[in-house]
């Protein structure tokens, strides 16, 4: 099977769904409605292959000749493909999922999918300084797994937590908070637990590895918490003046710059053939360090235009670099 396969064609999936829905409840369907569900809004009609498929897979309903029903009164089996099974095997043998799936279920699935994934032998992930991403030993550490599972469960159950954690400066934090998100950083290969502080009305995050104590409380999160936390995060974007840079495409800088900024919303203007202006939307202190590293890494290919304070900061960084 190829990964780009007919069996995953959108129309085929729709047809299979119609067949199986008919098994759950007999619902003959007008041909026009069936064609509409396949073609989408922008197509005049079904394609020739789709027409043949509909003619063969469906028949005119005995009860109403205006309607179609599946030719066979047999369900279409829902079975994972070989590619999906192979992928699932990769998941089961990846320690990063230890906190997300119970040991019992993992063992049960491994018994059904005995072939261990060989992806580890084939795929290497490196950081830009050319070392392999850290394979954190804590993914197999029972204490870490327990902490992680508690964070995860609090999200599933939507209940508040009592937490104790520390940051890299040695400051200790403790208190009650509502779980908001579980963030995974592909660059550092680590999880962050993002929580909402109701008193201070802000979100904050802790690397799961720095959480020393966490308990789920018998308190539901406030019903409007998710909305408030999402609004807070969006406000950071609205309140932060976009960073405007000029990019000169030399030494493949265009490709590197856009790959680095792929997760940011931005407006792009082509000034000349090889010179671009980018207005990068960001969320203030959430993104500033990451963006600063990106901009510095691109060297003379990038010039910050605005905001002026940020431009001055970058100039200072460059001026003082490699001079001690």
């Amino acid at each position, binding site marked *: 099977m190829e990964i780009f396969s007919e069996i995953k064609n959108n129309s085929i999936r729709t047809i299979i769904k119609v067949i199986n829905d008919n098994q759950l409840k007999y619902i003959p369907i007008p041909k026009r409605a069936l064609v509409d569900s396949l073609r989408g809004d*922008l*197509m005049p009609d079904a394609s020739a292959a789709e027409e043949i498929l509909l003619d063969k897979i469906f028949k005119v309903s005995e009860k109403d000749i205006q309607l179609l029903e599946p030719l066979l009164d047999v369900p279409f089996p829902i079975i994972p493909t070989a590619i999906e099974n192979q992928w699932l095997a990769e998941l089961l043998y990846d320690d990063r999922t230890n906190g997300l799936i119970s040991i019992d279920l993992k063992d049960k699935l491994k018994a059904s999918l005995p072939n261990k994934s060989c992806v580890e032998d084939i795929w290497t992930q490196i950081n830009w300084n050319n070392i392999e991403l850290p394979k954190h030993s804590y993914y197999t550490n029972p204490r870490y797994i327990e902490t992680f599972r508690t964070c995860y469960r609090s999200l599933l159950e939507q209940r508040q937590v009592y937490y104790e954690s520390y940051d890299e400066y040695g400051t200790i934090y403790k208190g009650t908070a509502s779980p908001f998100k579980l963030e995974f950083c592909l*660059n550092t290969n680590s999880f962050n637990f993002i929580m909402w502080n109701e008193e201070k009305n802000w979100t904050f995050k802790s690397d799961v590895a720095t959480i020393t104590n966490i308990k789920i409380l018998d308190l539901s999160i406030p019903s409007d918490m998710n909305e408030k936390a999402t609004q807070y995060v969006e406000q950071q974007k609205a309140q932060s003046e976009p960073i405007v840079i000029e990019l000169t495409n030399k030494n493949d800088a265009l490709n590197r710059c856009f790959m680095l900024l792929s997760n940011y919303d931005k407006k792009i203007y082509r000034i000349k053939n090889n010179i671009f202006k980018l207005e990068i939307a960001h969320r203030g202190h959430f993104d500033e360090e990451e963006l600063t590293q990106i901009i510095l*890494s691109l060297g003379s290919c990038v*010039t910050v235009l605005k905001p002026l304070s940020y431009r001055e900061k970058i100039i200072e960084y460059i*001026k*003082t670099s490699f001079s001690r």
Partner: protein
Amino acid sequence: MMNIFLTCTFLFKDAKLLSKKGGTILMTRTKKSSFKKTTKNFNIWRVFLRDCFLFGFRSRNEYAEIDINGRTYDDLKKRLEICVDQSFFDLTARDGKLKFLKFKADSYNYSYNFLSNTFGTKSINNNFYLELLAIQILTASQKPLLQREIGEALENLNITDFYNITLYRSLEKLESYGWINIDKGTKNYKYSVVSSFLDNLTLSELKELYLVTTFYKNVSMLTLPGYYLMATLEDFAYNKFGAILKEKDFFQFRFNNFSRLLDETVIYIIQQAITNGHNITYSTKNSLGNIEKPVKIITKYPYNSQKLVTETGKELLLYKLNDISCTQKEILKQHHSKKTKGKQCLEIVFTFWPTDDSREVIHIKNRIMEETLWMTCIEKTENRWIFRANVKDSLSYVPWLRTYHKYISFTKNTYPKLVKKILDDKAEALANYGNIF
């Protein structure tokens, strides 16, 4: 006159009679639309999607720069609008005229990779119905069936316009999906539907599996099978338990470049080749029919760039490879890249002054400790850390080195070309700002 009319009809394909005016018959050739919402080959689709997602600065005419003419652009854009919800992209106008197609990319808002929908556009052939009916026939049967018996079941449904070889190939396809077993033990093959591990899962286990799939699909080497499995689990849960599984919105990812998914037609073949010990053939913009033995796939963060390392030491960017397939053909000429040992000395000094912001220093030191594990620490005092490594290509470290700004410098042992490049670039950067270094 009638004879002329008939002749005209035969001469003009798809001709349409417009009007009959004063004895003169006006006809026009109806144009068949070239647009197809599906495609056999992912190549051009992939180039277009990558450009839209990553860059999004080209107007319709400017797509000619990457060999996509206006007509092709129109078709690809229309296909995109059909398979990806329009909430995921913008069509912005500039200068009142030019329009630019751009995906929305904010990783805080989207953990679902909408590019996965573009893989639902593979063309189906006219005999595809045989696959769907064959598996239904096998599902209904209590025992394995011969191909002849499947053919008879189709005939009973008044489906007779197929060749045996076509049915045979359809059954082979079903086997390649992993959906049927073929018992080749006897002279005539017997076919049966496989049993699925999903049948042994409770609803609670299914929900647990679904959630971990929604996470893992964004961090695995191949992400698309995760999206496929998600859809399979959704359909299975609905059909068996009447349950609706829905992705939670509490997973968030950093440095998850969605366009990585577009390389997966290539990665999948490479994975097969490495697993089976085969070579690959591939083409690039400038050459066809290249053969290499693949060894490893490397994903480099924070760029999310992906490359293939071959046995001959080549490093090939995956997004540039097309028409890839496994082959057992041997490579005729082995041109091994020079396997030079790391000869370029990289000796970097991190210096911390009393006037530095103490919190910034702590943060930088933590970064250094994580990011220099591959180097040898040759000096470590409170205010000065020196690390050394011998590398093949010191210039490739330049982006990383720049991120340490004032804290980093070099010893005299460092490869001189590296030092010159960095300092020259620094001068150029400052000149761009109007400062003189």
